[in-house]
């Protein structure tokens, strides 16, 4: 027996105001209770399609819209996103950009209050939703004090509390470590409603999905079961079939660029982030810094780059280091792409132009960085730290939210930089990135967390 259709997308085409087409002639149906993996490269139209299902396209964003989207029998052209809320619930990529309230319990209750839920049922539903995602103990905590992973679970609870028929998730695990992502996806699988899940961590998503949609340049290239999807991806888009594991060729490490000996660190009068850590990075090698959320990987990376100094222990640095922060696309500071890149080389636009072209951004020289897509912004961030040809490149979660093609390019670039005699230190959750050595940073804050 065919299950109930919860959403129908008919010949949908959409373009943002003054932008090229983001979605082109897409047609599909969603059945109640099925989990759909929405795959495709950055900029392929996945987020736009999710917004169309939530009614945010065209109501919130404007633009050119043709075709029809029906959700729970409502035509999204005539039904506002607020009216669709409850039938549909969304969790976006960055939890910081969606949290409204100060206290976790109130945050989960916010949507229920908006929908006019019976006041007597609100707190029981809040508690049930928080328990379902393993966040029951967070109810009285302030949202500002939560980690990214905790906040993302709270956002999922806020969506589940609405008891939606369709749950839309836009790269929700991009900020989570493996354990956090697995726990999140287990919560999604248990939700019981139809789910459309856009992700770049393909393997993990395919394990929980019933069906695969693959988008490219706004077009739906594949729509089928997970088994069929795995075959199609393996033959047509092999990088999306399974997470690629990159090998690093044998290195001949040269002189040390940074030597960290028995350091401890704390931010101000806060708790100790790590204690008794040793680490060295030499010319010609890639060193991966791994560990769960909150273990201190970013802090150690900043110490190596010279952005922080330890409370105790020694850090010896030779040569020049540059540091690429997490989410670099958010931290761009100039009015044009070329000025952004030239900042690190005293305004030398010739070198900046060459770096932009090296990262496939030759077309964007005079564009404002904030007019670029998220993937392009990430590459602009890389160009801005690589342009000055530093001795040591420190990269903090560079594959976060990056599609498999860009990830492969990044891996090749890291190895090329190491082979040219630079040192590369990369803090990452991505165990498939190439590395000559891997250093585990432990979660136990007061114990030694890794030594070389």
């Amino acid at each position, binding site marked *: 027996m065919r299950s109930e259709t919860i959403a129908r997308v008919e010949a949908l085409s959409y373009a943002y105001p003054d932008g090229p087409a983001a979605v082109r002639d897409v047609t599909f149906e969603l059945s109640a209770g099925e989990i759909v993996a929405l795959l495709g490269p950055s900029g392929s139209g996945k987020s736009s399609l999710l917004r169309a299902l939530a009614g945010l396209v065209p109501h919130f964003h404007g633009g050119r819209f043709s075709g029809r989207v029906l959700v729970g029998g409502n035509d999204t052209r005539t039904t506002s996103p607020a009216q669709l809320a409850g039938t549909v619930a969304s969790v976006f990529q960055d939890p910081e950009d969606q949290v409204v309230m100060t*206290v976790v319990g109130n945050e989960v209750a916010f*949507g229920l*209050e*908006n929908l006019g839920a019976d006041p007597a049922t609100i707190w029981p539903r809040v508690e049930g939703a928080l328990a379902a995602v393993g966040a029951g103990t967070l109810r009285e905590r302030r949202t500002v004090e939560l980690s990214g992973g905790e906040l993302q679970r709270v956002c999922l609870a*806020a969506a589940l509390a609405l008891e939606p028929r369709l749950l839309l998730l836009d790269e929700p695990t991009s900020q989570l470590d493996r354990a956090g992502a697995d726990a999140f996806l287990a919560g999604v699988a248990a939700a019981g409603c139809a789910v459309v899940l856009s992700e770049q961590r393909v393997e993990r998503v395919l394990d929980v999905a019933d069906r695969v949609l693959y988008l490219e340049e706004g077009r739906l290239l594949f729509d089928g079961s997970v088994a069929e999807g795995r075959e199609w991806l393996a033959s047509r888009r092999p990088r999306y079939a399974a997470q690629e594991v990159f090998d690093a060729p044998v290195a001949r490490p040269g002189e040390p660029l940074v030597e960290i000996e028995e350091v401890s660190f704390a931010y101000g009068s806060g708790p100790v982030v790590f204690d008794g850590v040793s680490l060295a990075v030499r010319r010609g090698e890639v060193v991966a810094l791994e560990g769960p959320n909150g273990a201190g990987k970013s802090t150690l990376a900043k110490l190596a780059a010279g952005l922080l100094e330890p409370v105790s222990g020694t850090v010896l640095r030779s040569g020049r280091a540059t*540091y690429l922060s997490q989410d670099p696309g958010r931290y761009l500071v100039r009015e044009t792409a070329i000025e952004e890149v030239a900042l690190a080389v005293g305004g030398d636009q010739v070198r900046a132009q060459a770096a932009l072209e090296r990262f496939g951004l030759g077309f964007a020289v005079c564009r404002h960085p904030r007019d670029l897509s998220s993937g392009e912004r990430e590459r602009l961030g890389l160009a801005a730290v690589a342009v000055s040809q530093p001795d040591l490149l*420190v990269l903090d979660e560079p594959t976060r939210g990056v599609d498999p093609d860009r990830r492969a390019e990044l891996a090749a670039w890291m190895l090329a930089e190491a082979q040219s005699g630079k040192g590369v230190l990369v803090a990452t959750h991505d165990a498939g990135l190439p590395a000559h050595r891997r250093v585990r940073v432990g979660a136990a804050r007061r114990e030694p967390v890794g030594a070389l």
Partner: protein
Amino acid sequence: MSPGPVAALLAAAAAAAFLTDRIWAVAVIVGVLLLVCLRAPADRRWPYLVGALVSGAGVIVLSPFLWSSGAGRLLWEGPTIPVLGTLDLSTDEIAAAVLSGARLTAVALAFSVYALLLDHDRLVASAGFARRSALAVALATRLVPTLERDAAGLAESVRGRGVELSGARGYATLLSPLVAGSLERASSLAEAMEARGYGRPGATRAPRPPWTWRDRLALAAAGVLVLLAVFVL
């Protein structure tokens, strides 16, 4: 305690600091608010405390030079600066500056307590007729730490490229991207709120605990404080 009476008490403290002319009374208000502020976590309270104390100290240091009372004992007379006039310093001006600086500190500390320790959500819920305005204030307050993190991220992004930021002029170059980033965040938040049904007619409120005797006492104390400042101090 319910946030409504506490907010009223904080507003009364700020108002009393402006209504009284007695420096000791303002100093007591500043001291009490400072002690309350110290109950907030250290990593969250320091920007508020620095902001409150630096702005108050700034008024105390600068304002005696920038206006002339024409009264009190003249301690120093300096050059005449276009627009500003003659720079001078008198005992009367110093006393007035200390009072103004302490008042500003009291208001800033009252806001700090509000931002750091109050449950803004319950305040919004109890606002009733002005719920949208209260929500806007609560959101702005909640986004202060985010803004702070974004500012640190921007500075780190520049320093991470080997470019040192020096002086006020160096950091001022980050102001424009900081504002642009805030606008992006605001737009994303508005989108998320709409997707969660904000603005839909027929909204309800989750039940909140009723006021206790402490809440009533705080509200009464707020009224008494203002009356004291007007008629006694």
